[in-house]
């Protein structure tokens, strides 16, 4: 047992005469204190830390809606709770689920501050959320230190479960590497050999890892990168950047932008008339981006985590429940949020404790097929789910509806999109400790 745990277990009591609590904890004291374990009382608190301002606020608000739906289902039944054997209504381990929400402001520093409060003041046992990989990474570093589990939601950088991976973080979403593997053959197939491409990317971990992965897999197939131009996250006027793209040399423009960035950059590319001279590709597509550029996205290719049109019982059940609650079809940000909460709850139920190391072990090497994305495996080596990648393209204007702007044109199976534990981003991953090694 670690020295710190002894101390915390004994030391938390203090002068206020709370000594009676030691050894209590509602009978769940088979494990020592760790992070915010044990969970006292009949409620358990989850922290939903999402961007409610900044470039990714729309996605963040979508996530929050789905998180609240997940809490509702966990407490009162409905959605996947009725379908998963591990779950039943009445909360997690019979504790009512409550939540605190925070605003990351799409900024790692603010996110870390907000997550600190959730852990220290609100006693959150698990934190989830984050659009923007730098935000996810800053939060999961904190969570690893604090021994609080972090369920990554929308984060697509290779680093999240690569170089910056942590034991306490799990990611279900695919990453830039998998996007590159899935998209490159399709692009070559569609636009031909020997094309010149130009990458314009958001200047942080997500953008740079997409730039690198697209370059790796496209150049492998004989394409040639003309240039890669960074844009600051949160840029809203892209027109000077678009003027800079060499029209004669470029055959394909990769717009590695997301959220409000993409909603601005895609129309700016069309406004500048770049579509006359080249093909435009959005490696990671997004509902908001598609919405903003709906007039122009006919045939524009990209990947997504999921789309509500994906037809399987879990996908349909979530879509239906979300539609009933919110009146619209869910985005994939919403599915990721819902799934992260449910997978955590199920792992706790299986572990029969909130003790983080046990919950983490429950999730490692787990093969599952109940989150609407087909069969996936949460690997123990890097905590990345190996899963199918959906390739989509924009619909022509006359076929678009409010809910459907994109259509799934292909699914790259996880054996093709995936990679081994000693390859790709996983090769750089050192997960760190569980926190109970000395027990």
């Amino acid at each position: 047992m670690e020295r710190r745990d002894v101390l915390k277990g004994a030391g938390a009591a203090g002068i206020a005469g709370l000594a009676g609590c030691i050894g209590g904890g509602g009978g769940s004291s088979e494990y020592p204190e760790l992070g915010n374990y044990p969970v006292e009382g009949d409620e358990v608190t989850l922290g939903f830390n999402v961007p409610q301002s900044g470039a990714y606020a729309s996605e963040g608000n979508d996530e929050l809606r789905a998180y609240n739906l997940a809490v509702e289902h966990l407490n009162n039944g409905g959605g996947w709770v009725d379908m998963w054997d591990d779950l039943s209504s009445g909360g997690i381990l019979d504790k009512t689920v409550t939540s605190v929400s925070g605003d990351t402001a799409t900024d790692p520093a603010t996110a870390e501050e907000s997550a600190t409060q959730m852990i220290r003041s609100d006693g959150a046992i698990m934190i989830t959320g984050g659009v923007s990989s730098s935000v996810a990474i800053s939060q999961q570093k904190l969570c690893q230190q604090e021994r609080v589990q972090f369920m990554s939601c929308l984060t697509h950088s290779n680093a999240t479960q690569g170089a910056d991976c942590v034991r306490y973080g799990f990611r279900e979403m695919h990453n830039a590497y998998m996007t590159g593997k899935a998209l490159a053959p399709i692009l070559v197939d569609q636009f031909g050999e020997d094309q010149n491409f130009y990458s314009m990317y958001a200047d942080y971990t997500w953008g740079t890892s997409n730039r690198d992965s697209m370059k790796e897999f496209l150049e492998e197939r004989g394409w040639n990168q003309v240039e890669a131009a960074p844009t600051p996250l949160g840029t809203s006027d892209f027109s000077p950047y678009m003027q800079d793209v060499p029209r004669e040399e470029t055959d394909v423009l990769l717009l590695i932008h997301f959220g409000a960035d993409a909603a601005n950059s895609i129309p700016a590319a069309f406004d500048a008339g770049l579509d006359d001279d080249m093909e435009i590709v959005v490696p990671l597509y997004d509902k908001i981006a598609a919405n903003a550029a709906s007039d122009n996205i006919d045939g524009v290719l990209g990947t997504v985590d999921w789309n509500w049109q994906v037809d399987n019982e879990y996908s349909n059940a979530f879509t239906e429940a979300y539609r009933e609650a919110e009146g619209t079809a869910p985005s994939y940000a919403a599915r990721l949020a819902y799934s992260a909460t449910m997978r955590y709850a199920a792992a706790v139920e299986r572990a029969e404790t909130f003790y983080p190391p046990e919950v983490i072990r429950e999730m490692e090497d787990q093969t599952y097929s109940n989150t609407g994305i087909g069969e996936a495996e949460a690997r123990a080596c890097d905590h990345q789910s190996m899963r199918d990648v959906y390739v989509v393209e924009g619909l022509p204007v006359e076929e678009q509806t409010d809910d459907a702007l994109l259509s799934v044109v292909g699914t790259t199976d996880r054996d093709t999109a995936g990679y081994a534990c000693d390859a790709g981003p996983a090769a750089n991953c050192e997960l760190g400790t569980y926190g109970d090694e000395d027990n």
Partner: protein
Amino acid sequence: MVDVAGILITGLQQGAIYALLGIGLTIILGTMQFLNLAHGALYLVGAYTGLLVVREISVQEGALAGIVADPTAFGIGSSFLVALVVTPILMFAIGVAMERFVARPLYDRSEVEQLLLTFGLALIVEELARQLIGSQPFSSYAPEELFGVVVSGQANIPFVGQYPRWRFVVIGLTFLLIGATYLVIERTDFGMVVKAGTRDSEMVRLLGIDITRSYALVFGVGAALAGLAGLVGGTIIDVAPGIGTNNALVPAFLTVVVGGAGSVVGAIVGGIVLGMVAAVFQFQAPQWSQIVLFGFVAVFLLVRPEGLFGSVEVGE
């Protein structure tokens, strides 16, 4: 390949918005010796006014749907025109109120206290916007057409090539506003007061001009210009609570110090100079563009502290 014309147009468009902001700030600063760090907040209010008018009037189920008999008759284009009328009127009223309730009690306070209090006010306005409208960004609201003329999409211009049409409208519109302001200041009694006030407000008072009323007028006009800058800015950048401090306040101050405090011509020229400097580097080395912009102003302030057209430093 760098096309000079493209840089010029981008610089002109950005510079014109800086100039609008700068004129508003400089006439207030020059006439009343009042340092207004809430100038960015006025830009913010202008942008949100534009957002509300454009979104609510254009949308059938908007809050104003009942007022207009047939909302569909008003396209998104005409609602921008409505905003173009509503914004300066509203902002003028806000400016007059601000002069009365914020600035007037502070005229005798020190420069530092003026800065502190208006900085606090800017924070409050930003937070009110966050609370009332929400912290998420709204995408810019450039209209599709004005007076039946399509203003979206790109135009093919000789020497420039493809360039978004709306940018030309922005340049035209802002220069129209700048020109009108310039004429008002050069040709009217109001302008006389501003010009005289920026030189010697004691003298104006001695001449028997009701300076209090003029102060309110100047503040109102300054606020209206900042609001119009916000309205125009909101057609190019996303509207979010932070744009007042992030996108407007600092450029406004840079414009005024480069142009020379109290000088309207200085604000116009200063704004365009800064817009050009930023634009050149936005094309050449985008990551350096802001660094060069601030560096330019720093060097300028050290070499020519009175600004391009100013005669004295404020607070010297």
